[in-house]
């Protein structure tokens, strides 16, 4: 079953249920429908789910997040040291995956904001918008157009070209 969203991050606004002030003697149809639904569907599903949970409690086991040691980067490798290149490449790939997940999470947050606020998300959720913009800009400048065959080496070359362009721009402005 997919997890529910993190309730601390996407906070629902506090609900304001009015105090019941019945003026009629007739029963409330919403309550009747609610009770019907509860007894026909909700109870069955909940009991089944609890039975399944009890079966699962008998053999519990855990999974962990893997911690990888940091190895020297590709810039810290000697020329021609192919082992160092390989380890740096693997580390770069892991970092790429992590960055993809980070961008995904920022996108999800923005999407949740937009869903809740509707069209007023631009003012109400400026913080999330800023975060996403910053993250997306950084991601684009670092991993942007590397393509399917991206590697640590090509990323380094991309950085080199970026720095050359910055230098040229700084010289031309000065």
């Amino acid at each position, binding site marked *: 079953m997919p997890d529910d969203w993190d309730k601390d991050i996407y906070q629902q606004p506090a609900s304001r249920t009015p105090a019941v002030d019945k003026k009629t003697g007739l029963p409330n149809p919403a309550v009747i429908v609610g009770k019907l639904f509860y007894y026909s569907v909700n109870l069955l599903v909940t009991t089944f789910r609890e039975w*399944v949970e009890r*079966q*699962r409690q008998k*053999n*519990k*086991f*855990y*999974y*962990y*997040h*893997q*911690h990888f040691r940091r190895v020297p980067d590709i810039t810290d490798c000697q020329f*021609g040291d*192919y*082992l160092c290149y*390989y*380890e740096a490449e*693997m580390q770069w790939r892991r970092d790429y995956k992590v960055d993809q997940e980070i961008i995904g999470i920022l996108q999800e947050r923005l999407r949740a904001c937009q869903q809740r606020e509707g069209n007023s998300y631009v003012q109400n959720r400026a913080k999330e918008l800023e975060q996403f913009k910053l993250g997306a800009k950084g991601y684009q400048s670092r991993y942007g157009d590397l393509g399917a065959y991206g590697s640590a080496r090509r990323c380094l070359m991309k950085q080199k070209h970026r720095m050359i362009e910055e230098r040229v721009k700084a010289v031309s402005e000065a």
Partner: protein
Amino acid sequence: MAVLSVLRAAAALVVRRSPHKLQHLAGNNLLRAFPIASKVAVRLGSNGKQMFAIKSSQYYDRRFLHLLRFYILLTGIPMAALITFVNIFIGEAELAEIPEDYVPEHWEYFKHPITRWISKYVYDPPEKSYEKMMALISIETEKVDLRQKHLEVRRLMRERGDGAWYQYETLDKNLIDNSQKTNPDY
């Protein structure tokens, strides 16, 4: 067999033509299956004429679908049962912090129990493939190194001439006859 069926067809034709006489004549063995057409009670549900609807054969289509269902469900049902039981009775793992001084096995990084089982019993640990790749790279690095050194050594030995290679045997200088050098050329 073909002869018999021709015989039966001929007998049916004859019986339909002259029902009474032949039933008593032939010993009922061959003609038993054919009721006399005028004496059979025909029950019509509606008051309509009986029609013979000419359709194409559905035998092959039905056979195909039957076999398709059979072969899909042959492994499908056990697999579905297995996956249901695993999901209900074993359930997925929970995320936990790695305890102190504990190095988890490589299958303990997965959530679903079937993935864990596959990782434990079928696949090699990722550390093993990493190390295998590193071993191949180091072998290739050594090969590159040695080949470079080989070329360099060849170049230097050829250049300097004091090595083990590029030594060419020349004649012994005592074998040279220098007697004609005493007379000038004119």
